[in-house]
């Protein structure tokens, strides 16, 4: 009798680990997952928002799609005078990645600028009269800072089995600069990344990210991810960089406020001076900040509460094989399949969630072919933050035509893999040595994310 009670007690109280196989692997965002495979799959609200939060999300959604016009205007005033595009949605097409052209109304590429060296806070050194970003569009009567021409050169890659894939390498040439640029200036292309799931990524504990780091490769596996510590100009503190293609931005507020400021020329409470301040294109209007505080906060909340699209066809046999290959080739060394988020008492959908972002949020040397040569805080000219792979299979839906990598040079996932170098070179080489059917399985797996 007592034995039975004791047994019962231990069975009820046994603190077991939940078997990994019992998690639904379709739920890339944990509770913050939505089942949609259409062009709208990146634009859904996380579940369980109360009515007020839902309304804030909708206001942020509307603001994200608003077209800005030049001041003074009754609605959406404050565009430019110099900028890259007129609304968040024009670059982040359907809340996703856009098209890698520059200077056109549907362009999604922008360019960071700097001269060698670091500023007082350890960040990139701005170019006098240009700043830290090139604005290649201007309102009528003002001159853009410059234009950028893009030329692609073909690079053939031959598999051991003889199959050839043609990659394209971009070259960027600055023309029509409104003033001459200093010799040795640095330019780095950035294709607008998807904006979903960022609330989850922001909620990964710093300690977790640091656990993934191995800057000096002490475990000898060839992977040496390192965190990027950056300076937050709003809090005046050194913080872990999470967002931006070089993990150069610490949180969503700085990312969104910075985008309003540099990409659209819209001043806000974080960046209250025009991006063209001190330049000949500056406007003489006393209308700063041009963006209402509440609007900025609503858009940050909108981004924070965008759900992750569920994986597709997870039980397909080829995809299961591809998943094994992904681990065997150690793609998972940087593209971490499973991460646990931290606590958030206000948003249950991002609180303590087991997510599958396929990123370690760390910087890695990706080799000379992908290098931009421009350091950004602790990120060297060869290093990029591991891109999250969740949702990658839906880029073709959200943008019509998919583009991959930081500058959109890759037109297929296969091309993206073939560009991997540096720390990723061994994995890329192993991929190339796989049989064609095995390569197809791995690609099918990544396509299911």
């Amino acid at each position, binding site marked *: 009798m007592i034995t039975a009670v004791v047994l019962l007690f231990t069975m009820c109280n046994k603190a077991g680990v939940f*078997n990994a*196989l*019992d998690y*639904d692997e379709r739920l890339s965002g944990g509770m913050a997952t939505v*089942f*949609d*495979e*259409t*062009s*709208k799959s990146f634009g859904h609200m996380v579940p369980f928002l109360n009515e007020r939060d839902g309304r804030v999300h*909708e206001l942020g959604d*509307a603001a994200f799609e608003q*077209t800005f*016009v*030049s*001041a*003074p*205007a*009754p*609605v*959406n005033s404050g*565009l430019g005078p110099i900028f890259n595009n*007129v609304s968040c949605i*024009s670059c982040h097409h*359907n809340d996703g990645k856009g098209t890698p052209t520059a200077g*056109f*109304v*549907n362009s999604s590429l922008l360019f960071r600028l700097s001269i060698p060296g670091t500023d007082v806070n350890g960040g990139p050194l701005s170019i006098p009269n240009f700043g830290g970003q090139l604005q290649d*569009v201007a*309102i*009528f*009567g003002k001159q853009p800072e410059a234009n950028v021409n893009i030329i692609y050169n073909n690079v053939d890659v031959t598999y051991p089995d003889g199959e050839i894939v043609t990659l394209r390498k971009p070259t960027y040439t600055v023309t029509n600069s409104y003033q001459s640029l200093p010799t040795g200036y640095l330019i780095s292309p950035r294709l607008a990344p998807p904006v979903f799931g960022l609330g989850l990524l922001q909620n990964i504990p710093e300690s977790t990210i640091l656990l993934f780091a191995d800057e000096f490769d002490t475990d000898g596996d060839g992977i040496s991810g390192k965190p990027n510590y950056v300076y937050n100009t709003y809090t005046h503190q050194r913080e872990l960089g999470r967002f931006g293609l070089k993990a150069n931005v610490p949180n969503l507020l700085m990312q969104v406020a910075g985008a309003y400021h540099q990409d659209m020329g819209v001043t806000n409470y974080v960046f209250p001076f025009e991006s063209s301040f001190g330049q000949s294109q500056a406007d003489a209007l006393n209308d700063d900040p041009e963006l209402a505080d509440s609007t900025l906060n609503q858009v940050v909340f909108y981004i924070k509460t965008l759900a992750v699209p569920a994986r597709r066809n997870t*039980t397909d046999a080829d995809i299961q094989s591809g998943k094994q290959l992904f681990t065997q080739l150690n793609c998972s060394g940087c593209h971490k399949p499973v991460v646990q988020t931290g606590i958030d008492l206000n948003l249950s959908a991002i609180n303590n969630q087991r997510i599958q972002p396929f990123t370690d949020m760390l910087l890695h040397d990706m080799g000379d072919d992908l290098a931009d040569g421009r350091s950004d805080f602790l990120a060297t000219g060869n290093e990029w933050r591991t891109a999250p792979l969740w949702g990658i299979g839906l880029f073709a839906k959200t*943008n*019509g035509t998919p583009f991959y990598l930081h500058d959109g040079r890759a037109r297929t996932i296969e091309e993206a893999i073939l560009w991997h170098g540096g720390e990723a070179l061994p994995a890329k080489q192993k991929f190339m040595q796989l049989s064609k059917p095995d390569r197809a399985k791995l690609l099918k797996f990544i396509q299911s994310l």
Partner: protein
Amino acid sequence: MKKISLLSLIIISLSFSSCNKSDDPGTDNFTALKTEVLTDFSNVVAVPGYADLNNAATALNTAIQNLNTNATEANLTEAKNAWKNIRSVWEKCEGYLFGPVEDNDYDPNMDTWPTDYVQMDSLLASSNALTLNDIKTITLSLRGYHPIEYIIFGNHGDRTAASITARQKAYMVSLATDIKNTCNELYLSWTTAPTNFAQRVKNAGNGSTVYAKKQEAYLAIVEALIGICEEVGEGKMKEPYDALDPSIVESPYSGNSVSDFKDNIIGLQNVYLGKYASGDGKGLNDLVASKNISLDNTLQNQMTAAINSFDNITVYYEQAIISQRIQCQQTMTALATLKTTLENNLKPFIIQNIQD
């Protein structure tokens, strides 16, 4: 505690549904309907809608050119009517805002709001030649329907033919040609190679390069219905209403806002019923009714109620948000109710019943 794997759960639920299928004599009909509804959506609703849009754009272009050649009040009235007509057709086309209209940016190229008046003044004062090529590369807030609206309507129709300047005429001529070209491209994107989008919808689940399963095409259609319902009820109507700010209202110069909103929901209804103008094919309603008559009735009633409620708003929307708030709220409530049913009932219906 027994742990049931996901795989076996799937197998169990599949076997339950296959048991139901063999008992239901209407299954073959449903199977045929699944293809018919996609076919009729393309052939009866979407393509004829874009064909009408194409024609309306040509008519607008002609009217604007006549106004340019001969700036009489009669020609100005013709231009205004042609503008209102194309808006009516376009707003109905917004019931299915997926495919080339969004992938190829046709929507933002024609329908960006707000219009940038400061830049427009600069543009007209500059020496820009205002040719078609200049318009095609111009910022979107200076392109499409709304700059034309500003030029030919003025403030609620107070524009006179004589007061339209030479620069404004050159500008509107290029704008109208640009819209004509865009609507033509949009029509062709559905009906001819290489895009041939109508074919890709009709072939969903049967070799289509866009929709690997019929379910994907249906979900794209339903998401578009939910999208437009939400955009009208929670965006275009609610934002100016909540802010009590007439300056936020879209398309104020022509006083056409309420018609636009109503036409959006008529477009939604057209898609649901598989009907457009004189065409009447199989629609989502036939699929729904074959398994859940009650849901079909609910949806149809809610659509009718929402559409009819617009008729209670009898002044310009910029005024209605101040003087007819109850009527505005009633319409927004009707749209919210419809959206809830679309999201919580129609979408799951599709997911459960169209799995291939």
